[in-house]
């Protein structure tokens, strides 16, 4: 079988791709359709279907967890995903949804559906047989178990666009030089943590990822909110910085996948979290001195 693919199908595909006029394009389309049919029949086409029918506000993070879980479940090869979205959702974050999906290096194709019938109609062409029809994952909410699994699991690195990585690495070099850089993404109600972390880690450059607010900041804090960074660039910034202190959103997820040291906050008692941040900062700096 391997030799047939190597000596017949691949050269034929390469040749047909270069003959981009009729009837070669028709031959190419039919050959590729046949290849897909074979992939479907032999079970090499894998799709995962997710439903986000309740709302899309936290969908970028939930998709990140979901993709990570799929990656762990399928040890090799590429896969496709279909996401059933609510038509009435007005969370203005579909661009972030697609940004997160595009970071998965093993994800081939993406189907976004606002209609059950269209999804059912397409499903046999994404994946054949019972597996495709076996039901969809609920991605409306990340379970506590799912979050714990994500926090502990080994992750496959995500693939951010080269331009986004170049842009923020240059920015970070210019703004921080050789100093340690910590990304801050604090919850709106816990800005007191800012003082805690800045006091606990002197000599470090801090980068505020979220809304900066109007409060004056010390000179070693840079607010990135008005830098016009895309989600890919913000994720690349988190990846390029030395540590992350902030909430568990898509940036927190990016920090975990990238193995950045740090503290996730905004999930428990603010006093305990302040203490945890202080201890972590002391350990973080202690290890680096």
């Amino acid at each position, binding site marked *: 079988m391997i030799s047939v693919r190597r000596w017949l199908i691949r050269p034929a595909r390469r040749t047909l*791709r270069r003959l*981009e*006029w*009729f009837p070669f*394009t*028709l031959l*190419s*389309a*039919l050959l*590729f*359709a046949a*290849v*897909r*049919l074979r*992939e*479907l029949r032999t079970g090499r*086409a894998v799709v995962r279907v997710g439903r986000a029918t309740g709302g*899309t506000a936290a969908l970028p993070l939930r998709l990140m967890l979901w993709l990570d879980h799929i990656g762990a479940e399928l040890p090799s090869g*590429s896969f*496709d995903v279909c996401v059933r979205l609510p038509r009435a*959702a*007005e*969370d*203005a*974050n*579909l*661009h972030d949804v*697609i*940004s997160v999906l*595009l970071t998965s290096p093993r994800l*081939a*194709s*993406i*189907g*976004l*559906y*606002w*209609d059950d*019938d*269209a*999804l059912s*109609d*397409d499903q046999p*062409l*994404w994946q054949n047989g019972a597996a495709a029809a076996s039901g969809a994952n609920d991605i409306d909410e990340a379970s506590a178990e799912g979050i714990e699994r994500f926090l502990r699991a080994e992750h496959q690195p995500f*693939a951010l*666009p*080269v*331009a*986004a990585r170049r842009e923020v690495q240059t920015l970070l070099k210019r703004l921080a030089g050789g100093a340690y850089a910590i990304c801050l993404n604090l919850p709106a109600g816990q800005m007191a943590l800012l003082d805690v972390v800045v006091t606990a880690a002197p000599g470090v450059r801090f980068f505020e990822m979220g809304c900066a607010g109007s409060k004056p900041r010390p000179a070693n804090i840079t607010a990135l*909110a*008005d*830098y*016009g*960074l*895309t989600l*890919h660039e913000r994720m690349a910034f988190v990846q390029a910085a030395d540590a992350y202190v902030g909430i568990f959103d898509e940036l927190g997820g990016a920090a975990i996948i990238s193995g950045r040291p740090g503290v996730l906050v905004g999930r428990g008692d603010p006093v305990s979290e302040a203490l945890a941040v202080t201890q972590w900062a002391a350990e973080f700096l202690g290890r680096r001195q």
Partner: protein
Amino acid sequence: MAESMIGIYDFSYAPYALGDALTWTMNLNIGAAEAGLETIDQYLVIDPSRPTNRHQPFINTLNVVGIIDQLFPAFLCSPKLRSLKIIRHVPTFNRFLVREALRRRRMWPSCWSHLNRNLDFISHRRINAFHRKHGTLPWLTAPRGYDAWAETFLRTHAVGRVVVAVNIRQSSLSATPASLSRDSPVQEWLSFLRRATTRHPDVVFLVMGAYAELDREMSRLPNVVIPRAMGFALAHELALLCRADLFMGTSSGFAAMATFCNKPYLIVNVDQGFSQYIDVPVGERHYPFGGDNQILYWERETADVLLDFFEELQARVRHR
């Protein structure tokens, strides 16, 4: 299951460009309206091993993800959108294509055109013909999921004021410079904005375009709001444009959005070569489907020209 209109945007022969994506969506809307179809299924096809097309040789496997990420919201502007697939595996797409062809679904481009790798991504031929026949057009809307956000944003930043969306094309400052002759003279726009914001303090200007293309001085001007500098993206800008009272800008992607969501507009520096594609003689003031408040200006803009047109249009908009 109800039949739907099929849209194919294959990036191996169609450009990665905002205006062309919006024109394609408009043609899809027209195809659906002509056939009496209520829904549209879109296929965006990218061959990951060969993502470029003959119009944009600078696109390669390393930058294509970033470019599609930025352009994606342009494909969310049809109110009939039912599904959108980004297919990065050629056999998968061809399996779908064969199914749709066997079902004799209406497609844009047609299956024959697709097999000939031929997409009319620029002309207004079908749009003009539809307007001649029906006297109206199936307009684009804000990207799916962004309209309520735009309403809230304008309530916060522009309540009770005339909202003017502005695009000052500065492709020379972008990561992928192209057609620099269509770039705007930024000093003329700055001069216009300084005068307009002084003379009309009840107007708020929303400056749109990629962050790299923005001029720093604009953020110092009163009554100027720059959504990109606030962390928002193309999808938010398109939604805001749909809710603005007026659009002013160069002939480019944002101008296409203003044109196809039926806003009052002034589009300046219209490329004379574009005339043959839109069936509008050079110098003609309106598209065939354009109204009195939808003006084409074929010469390079100056601050005086911009101010004159702005005052004419905003007075009309105000008295609507």
